[in-house]
């Protein structure tokens, strides 16, 4: 019989074991594929997600006046490779007669679109048809209203009651932003998309639009489009300009790279854990046959022949396993991608790119098993036959992993970058077996008191195959640590935003009117619940930056009120003092625009004014989250003269203490009604920001949870191996009267022990990681306090235990099903 046949025979002879090993290869390969596909999809999806949050358009065309002529769109449509939509917005009131629904809940933002069925709007139709002269609403709005395609929406407008039929219900998107319930409608208006002509007609704006959005179709060069659009606009001789939208989103998420790093880290973790699961189970399955190999050597097999035999066995397994893993992995990858896109509510038809995944998964599925099996086989070849047969394997306690691990962990303290995860996690993996031994020693008495006989057995079993068991535990531990880190970062991010937003919002409410009349301010101040109010001018100024044009929102700030209505915080002196000291050509930049600019304080920037481009001196950098932290501030008086703004649109409102924020909104709405274009408070901003971040983090969470589930499979594998190895022992236990349920409990407790060590270790490690990262991490120019939420930790602990519980179910069932006769006869 050739060695190859013998190898095959061996595999067939131990079917269960072969199947288990095969399974771990399949799972490892599949999860590598899944992880890589997720990272790849996330790389593609995130920019899209951010863009969908901040607008789908690549460019917008705007005028210096509020409105410009509609026919500008035709010159833009002449530019090839673009899709464009002309827009006109207006607010209106829903005619809705139902008890308990007040006016503020009936606010509707009407968006007139020249076309609703374009690559730019990209609505996903749930029901009905786009491109007709009906209205388009989101599925969320349709649900709250109980409305359907064909129903009529009645609106109160300047020119009387108007009705329009619903032509299509589409998936919720940012353009169709609206409240999720009637209660939420007190915060946000509904949005209804209607044909452009409807808005023009109802509000006496015939022939007028206020903006054009342009999307570049695939394969078109953006800079050429911008040039051509600019050319077209110049020909028209109107005061229109085109500007890229994307750049704003870039500014918002300049720290997207940090995020990608986190994503890669999670991916790296997933891949290493998968690799580890493969390595581990192969290692164990060869290791435990050392006695058999020794016996084969006594009957004349050489070490080389043995090595070749194992090589064949492993090769067979890895080839089959990799093939099956690729198959399963493709399915997993597609599923994960779909889930990811669902989480980010992005729609994309493109297939999953599997090439990179295959490139990593195939070698992993074949080389790792070989590597894992060669080490123990080499050892088996070297040790004396007699030793092996006697099976008196004394555990050798080596010191180097402990020392190397400590060094690696310590080095993590000195790396001010997320990359510190790599040495730190490696170090923990090396040190963990020592800690695990201590943990088991503490667990034993606990198990004994809590669970009696079965606890005693489980505790002792845990300290038997310590190497294998602790390796399994450390895998789960690393996964849990990452969950702790990422979810805490997520929470810290949102809390920090919340704090900063509240500190620099300039009051409790920002009310934007179409324009503010002289008595409006007094009217506002007299409104019930208002403690104080001011108005301010805001202009999105064109900024010439390195030959590019972009928009810079500039705020006119009154030195008399800025300390009461803080729009920013500045170092050194109070905001009022800082504003007072500004000269007429000086402004303050916020951190984001400052970094975007790349200059230094004292240098000048070029801004477009009614008199043409003028340079302004950057006098300082301030912190703000107003307008998501992108803008510049000037003294209100200088702002007026520089930019010739005749009217103000925004009012900041301070609420009387203890006055309900919602009631305040209602009161103000009752006063100003449809003249209000927008009412936005810091809490709205917080919810938008946290939704964006939580959405982005969901990808990382998904990956880490995947990695943790893989570690759960590691536990299953280890427990199954323990059971196989001790099958005769199980038979004996059952023979002497240990019941089936006692055996089940014993196996479950073993699994839970592994899981508990991992969970405890993971939480401690995660907290350490959080501490280390909060020392240097700054996202969006914000730093984060080191804080762990007991709630999150508790949740994660439950998750860790749930994973290990689930992982133990199969082995426990398997142990319960052991046929006694066969078990006692085994080998």
């Amino acid at each position: 019989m050739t060695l190859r046949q013998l190898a095959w025979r061996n595999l067939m002879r131990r079917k269960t074991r072969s199947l288990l090993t095969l399974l771990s290869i399949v799972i490892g390969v599949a999860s590598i594929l899944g992880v890589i596909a997720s990272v790849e999809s996330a790389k593609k999806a995130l920019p899209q997600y951010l863009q969908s949050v901040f607008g789908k358009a690549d460019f917008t065309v705007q005028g210096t006046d509020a409105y410009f002529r509609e026919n500008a769109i035709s010159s833009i449509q002449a530019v090839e490779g673009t899709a464009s939509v002309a827009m006109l917005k207006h607010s209106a009131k829903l005619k809705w007669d139902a008890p308990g629904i007040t006016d503020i809940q009936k606010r509707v933002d009407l968006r007139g679109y020249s076309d609703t069925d374009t690559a730019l709007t990209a609505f996903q139709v749930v029901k009905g048809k786009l491109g007709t002269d009906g209205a388009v609403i989101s599925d969320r709005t349709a649900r709250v209203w109980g409305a359907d395609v064909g129903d009529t929406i009645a609106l109160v407008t300047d020119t009387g009651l108007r009705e329009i039929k619903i032509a299509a219900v589409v998936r919720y998107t940012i353009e169709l932003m609206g409240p999720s319930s009637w209660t939420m409608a007190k915060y946000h208006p509904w949005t209804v998309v209607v044909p452009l002509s409807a808005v023009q007609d109802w509000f006496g704006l015939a022939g007028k639009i206020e903006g054009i959005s342009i999307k570049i179709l695939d394969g078109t060069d953006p800079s050429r489009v911008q040039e051509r659009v600019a050319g077209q606009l110049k020909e028209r001789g109107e005061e229109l300009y085109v500007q890229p939208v994307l750049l704003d989103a870039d500014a918002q998420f300049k720290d997207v790279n940090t995020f990608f790093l986190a994503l890669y880290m999670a991916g790296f973790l997933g891949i290493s854990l998968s690799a580890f699961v493969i390595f581990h189970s192969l290692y164990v399955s060869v290791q435990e046959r050392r006695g058999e190999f020794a016996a084969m050597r006594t009957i004349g097999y050489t070490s080389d022949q043995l090595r070749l035999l194992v090589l064949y066995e492993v090769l067979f397994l890895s080839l089959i396993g990799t093939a099956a893993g690729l198959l399963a992995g493709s399915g997993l990858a597609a599923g994960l991608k779909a889930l990811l896109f669902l989480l980010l509510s992005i729609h994309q038809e493109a297939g999953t790119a599997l090439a990179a995944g295959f490139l990593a998964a195939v070698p992993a599925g074949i080389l790792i098993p070989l590597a894992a099996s060669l080490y123990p086989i080499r050892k088996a070849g070297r040790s004396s036959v007699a030793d092996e047969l006697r099976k008196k394997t004394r555990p050798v306690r080596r010191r180097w992993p402990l020392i190397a691990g400590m060094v690696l962990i310590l080095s993590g303290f000195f790396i001010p970058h997320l990359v510190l995860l790599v040495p730190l996690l490696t170090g923990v993996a090396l040190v963990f077996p020592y800690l695990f031994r201590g943990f088991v020693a503490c667990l034993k008495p606990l198990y004994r008191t809590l669970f009696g006989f079965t606890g005693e057995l489980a505790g002792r079993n845990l300290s038997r195959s310590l190497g294998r068991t602790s390796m399994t535990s450390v895998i789960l531990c690393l996964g849990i640590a990452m969950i702790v880190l990422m979810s805490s970062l997520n929470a810290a991010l949102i809390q920090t935003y919340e704090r900063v937003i509240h500190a620099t919002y300039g009051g409790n409410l920002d009310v934007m009117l179409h324009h503010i009349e002289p008595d409006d301010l007094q009217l506002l101040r007299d409104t019930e619940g208002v403690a104080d109010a001011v108005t301010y001018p805001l202009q999105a100024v064109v900024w010439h930056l390195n030959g590019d044009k972009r928009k810079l929102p500039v705020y006119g700030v009154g030195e008399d009120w800025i300390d009461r209505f803080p729009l920013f915080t500045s170092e050194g002196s109070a905001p009022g003092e800082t504003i007072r000291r500004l000269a007429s050509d000086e402004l303050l930049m916020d951190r984001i625009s400052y970094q975007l600019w790349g200059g230094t304080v004292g240098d000048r920037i070029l801004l477009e004014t009614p008199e043409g481009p003028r340079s302004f001196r950057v006098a300082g950098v301030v912190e703000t989250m107003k307008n998501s932290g992108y803008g510049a501030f000037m003294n209100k008086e200088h702002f007026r003269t520089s930019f010739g703004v005749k009217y103000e649109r925004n009012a900041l409102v301070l609420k009387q203490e203890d006055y309900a924020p919602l009631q305040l909104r209602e009161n103000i709405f009752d006063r100003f009604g449809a003249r209000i274009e927008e009412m936005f408070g810091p809490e709205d901003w917080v919810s938008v920001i946290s939704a964006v971040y939580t959405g982005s983090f969901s990808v990382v969470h998904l990956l880490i949870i995947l990695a943790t589930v893989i570690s759960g499979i590691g536990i299953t594998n280890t427990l199954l191996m323990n059971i196989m190895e001790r099958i005769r022992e199980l038979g004996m236990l059952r023979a002497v009267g240990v019941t089936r349920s006692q055996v089940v409990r014993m196996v479950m407790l073993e699994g839970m022990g592994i899981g508990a060590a991992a969970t405890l270790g993971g939480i401690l490690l995660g907290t350490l990681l959080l501490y280390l990262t909060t020392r240097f991490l700054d996202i969006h120019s914000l730093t984060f306090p080191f804080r762990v939420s007991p709630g999150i930790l508790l949740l994660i602990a439950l998750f860790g235990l749930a994973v290990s519980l689930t992982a133990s179910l199969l082995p426990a069932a398997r142990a319960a099903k052991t046929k006694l006769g066969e078990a006692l006869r085994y080998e």
Partner: protein
Amino acid sequence: MEEETKIMIKLEKAAKVFGSEAGTFTALQETDLEIRKGEFVAVMGPSGSGKSTLLQLLGGLDLPTTGSVRVDGEPLEKLSEKERTLFRRSKVGFVFQNYQLLPMMTAAENIALSLAASRTPKAEMERAVARLIGQVNLTGKEKSFPSQLSGGQQQRVAIARALAMKPKLLLADEPTGNLDRKNGRDVLELLSRLNREEQITVVMVTHDRYAAEAASRVVTLLDGAIASDEAEKAVAK
């Protein structure tokens, strides 16, 4: 009726057939067998003749494919899985060729295994273990782990474990198979003594003619059927 109560084991047309993809294999043909309380029966026969299979049926580790197995009046095939476990725990002691001790437990802890499984109070357990250790002559070895004991000592620990619940029936599958002559003799003597003094019924599988001499009756299996069943001369003496 009087006869009934004296019977420990009664096999009626009990047969065991193993099935696998390769086909079926009859390990034990339809067998009738009666063993009375207090008997010491040796089961002999060539390898593969079905000795272990028979023993497993007697201990309720496995069920006959057809027929019935009655132990101490209990029809095993009628009991539930759990009832059979409890039956084994309270009425049957098992001794195996390779001792089957838990390596991570001391001699005393191994002996106490079934006691612990049935939640015996600690004090009672300690008393029982002390008694058992004395019974198998291992005083002083309570704290030793199996790896620190000789084969004979390990087997005696295993016997003590089997005796812990005061069983009426002791089933031993080649208990001396791994032992040298001297140790084997010690174990056999121990079994005989238990049989004599405690009236424990013993069924012992063995390959060893010499070992079989300790028994009062020898049942020989051949190809899954009883080939002979005779009282040993030793008893006649």
